[in-house]
């Protein structure tokens, strides 16, 4: 876990150590040290909340530069359906796909089309025996990582079927080889156009436990501006899009669930809501549900940090785009293929446990309680930790200096000052 490569990076020279990101981090992964933020790699889930919160633009999502596509002879663009919601007055997805060809790709493969296969597989999977319900969607990598780190008892609820992006990559590669048998594997570059850094880390870390099928992850906002330059609508695009409205719907929270054609589902978006729902599942308090769709970003992928448009506006645009589409373009038949399964290897260590030895943990806990009782409990963040409790934990577990609490320090200094005054009166 410690060698996990993250896709959220910090520009130290821009960071003022202002604590804006500190309290927004859902896993308390950030501390302010020596005047700037430090991200704890073991706790970070690449949700991008700190990028949103940073007023100094010091945090950035890391993707591949566009030029990386030139390392491949045959470049396939794989747009997430969220891309279609970014444009004004787009009435035909083909304009967008044609645009991708115009900016230098040799082929396009829609992730939404593969999503329709995944929806079909999910419907089959839910009917299988011995499936632990509710089944939790594996589509949002941030949610999967959050569960692995914080809800070990729910790991088995994660659907062991690969996300649409991955299946699209398999299909796209197969199609490339069919069209051009002369191409070698390394000649083909599968380039995913991503709405978020979470998907980027998913790819660079080979999260399936095997080599990913995606080669390049491009930031949606970068591709958007390149597309604007070529999407003038001057000529009729080639008919390229094959997706139906079910596949396109995956871009918005609730879309994946509604494609299951069942009403025993729950769809939640935004990390705060996601965490609440996971707590409820963990407590067995939810009504009987077959499926739970969780998206870390507000409104789903349209709320991703690498998008251009406001999520609600993007959502409205996608609704009008979907109006004239068939229900589904893909019609998967037969059972779920073997290569659509993955094993959630879960080599994540639960982040919260103090020590492997309970006696030791209890000793540490009691020290933390003692330290915490001396703190002001105002969670101001000035010490560099998000809350007084987190600071107490840092003091006991990581040797943080208790004098970093400036509230207590102020009282201490005032007291010293009084003592000095008294002394001078006495003399």
């Amino acid at each position, binding site marked *: 876990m410690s060698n996990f490569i993250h896709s959220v990076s910090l520009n130290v020279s821009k960071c003022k150590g202002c604590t804006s990101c500190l309290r927004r981090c859902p896993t308390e992964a950030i501390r302010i040290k020596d005047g700037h933020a430090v991200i704890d790699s073991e706790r970070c889930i690449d949700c991008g909340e700190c990028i949103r919160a940073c007023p100094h633009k010091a945090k950035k999502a890391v993707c591949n530069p566009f030029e990386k596509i030139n390392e491949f002879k045959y470049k396939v663009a794989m747009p997430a359906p969220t891309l279609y919601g970014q444009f004004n007055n787009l009435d035909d997805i083909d304009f967008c796909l044609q645009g991708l060809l115009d900016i230098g790709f040799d082929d396009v493969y829609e992730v939404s089309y593969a999503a329709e296969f995944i929806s079909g597989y999910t419907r089959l999977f839910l009917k299988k025996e011995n499936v632990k319900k509710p089944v939790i969607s594996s589509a949002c990598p941030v949610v999967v990582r959050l569960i692995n780190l914080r809800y070990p008892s729910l790991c088995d609820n994660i659907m062991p079927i690969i996300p649409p992006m991955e299946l699209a990559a398999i299909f796209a590669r197969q199609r490339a080889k069919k069209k051009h048998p002369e191409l070698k594997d390394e000649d083909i570059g599968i380039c995913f156009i991503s709405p978020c850094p979470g998907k980027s880390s998913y790819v660079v870390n080979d999260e399936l436990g095997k080599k990913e099928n995606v080669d390049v992850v491009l930031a949606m906002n970068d591709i958007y501006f390149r597309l604007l330059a070529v999407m003038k609508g001057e000529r009729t695009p080639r008919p390229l899009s094959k997706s139906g409205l079910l596949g396109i719907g995956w871009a918005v929270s609730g879309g994946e669930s509604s494609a299951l054609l069942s009403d025993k589902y729950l769809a939640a978006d935004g990390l705060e809501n996601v965490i609440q729902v996971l707590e409820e599942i963990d*407590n067995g308090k939810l009504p009987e549900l077959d499926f739970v769709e969780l998206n870390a970003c507000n409104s789903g992928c349209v709320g991703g940090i690498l998008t251009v448009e406001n999520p609600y506006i993007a959502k409205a645009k996608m609704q009008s785009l979907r109006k004239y589409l068939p229900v589904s373009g893909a019609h998967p038949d037969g059972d779920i293929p073997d290569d659509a399964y993955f094993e959630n290897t879960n080599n994540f260590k639960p982040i919260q446990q103090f020590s492997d030895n309970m006696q030791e943990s209890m000793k540490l806990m009691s020290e933390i309680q003692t330290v915490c009782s001396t703190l002001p409990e105002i969670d101001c963040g000035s010490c560099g930790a998000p809350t007084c409790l987190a600071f107490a934990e840092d003091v006991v577990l990581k040797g943080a200096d208790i004098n970093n609490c400036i509230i207590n320090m102020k009282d201490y200094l005032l007291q010293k000052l009084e003592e000095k005054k008294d002394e001078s009166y006495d003399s």
Partner: protein
Amino acid sequence: MSKAINFHYVVDGDDFTSAGEASVDIKRKLRQLGVDPAIIRRVSIAMYEGEVNMVIHAEGGTVDVNVYEDKIEMILSDEGPGIANVELAMKAGFSTAPDYVRSLGFGAGMGLPNMKSYTDDMKIDTKIGVGTTITMVVNLK
């Protein structure tokens, strides 16, 4: 043997929606201590039921969780009306919750039976007009 660790919570009686905050917090603490997830779940469910009971019937109260090396003890105390017939209250489906509470989806008469079934030991100490103290124990070994 090291001393028990105590976690003290005040359950606010005014607000239904906040019932359960203590049981969420205790989960985090028990995870930090490395308690088995299955046990954490039992503690949390039993405590949640107890919290809801205190909000419905007693305008809130306090919860003290004592973690020992071999057991977890939960003491829920309130100054509510007391339980008139403990035997009846322990019956699945029996409830004295008012209608508006039921309309919110609570008051199904499963609170006390659930608390008993998720714990290894439960004692009810109640006095009409004075209050109720429920002590539950979940063994760690």
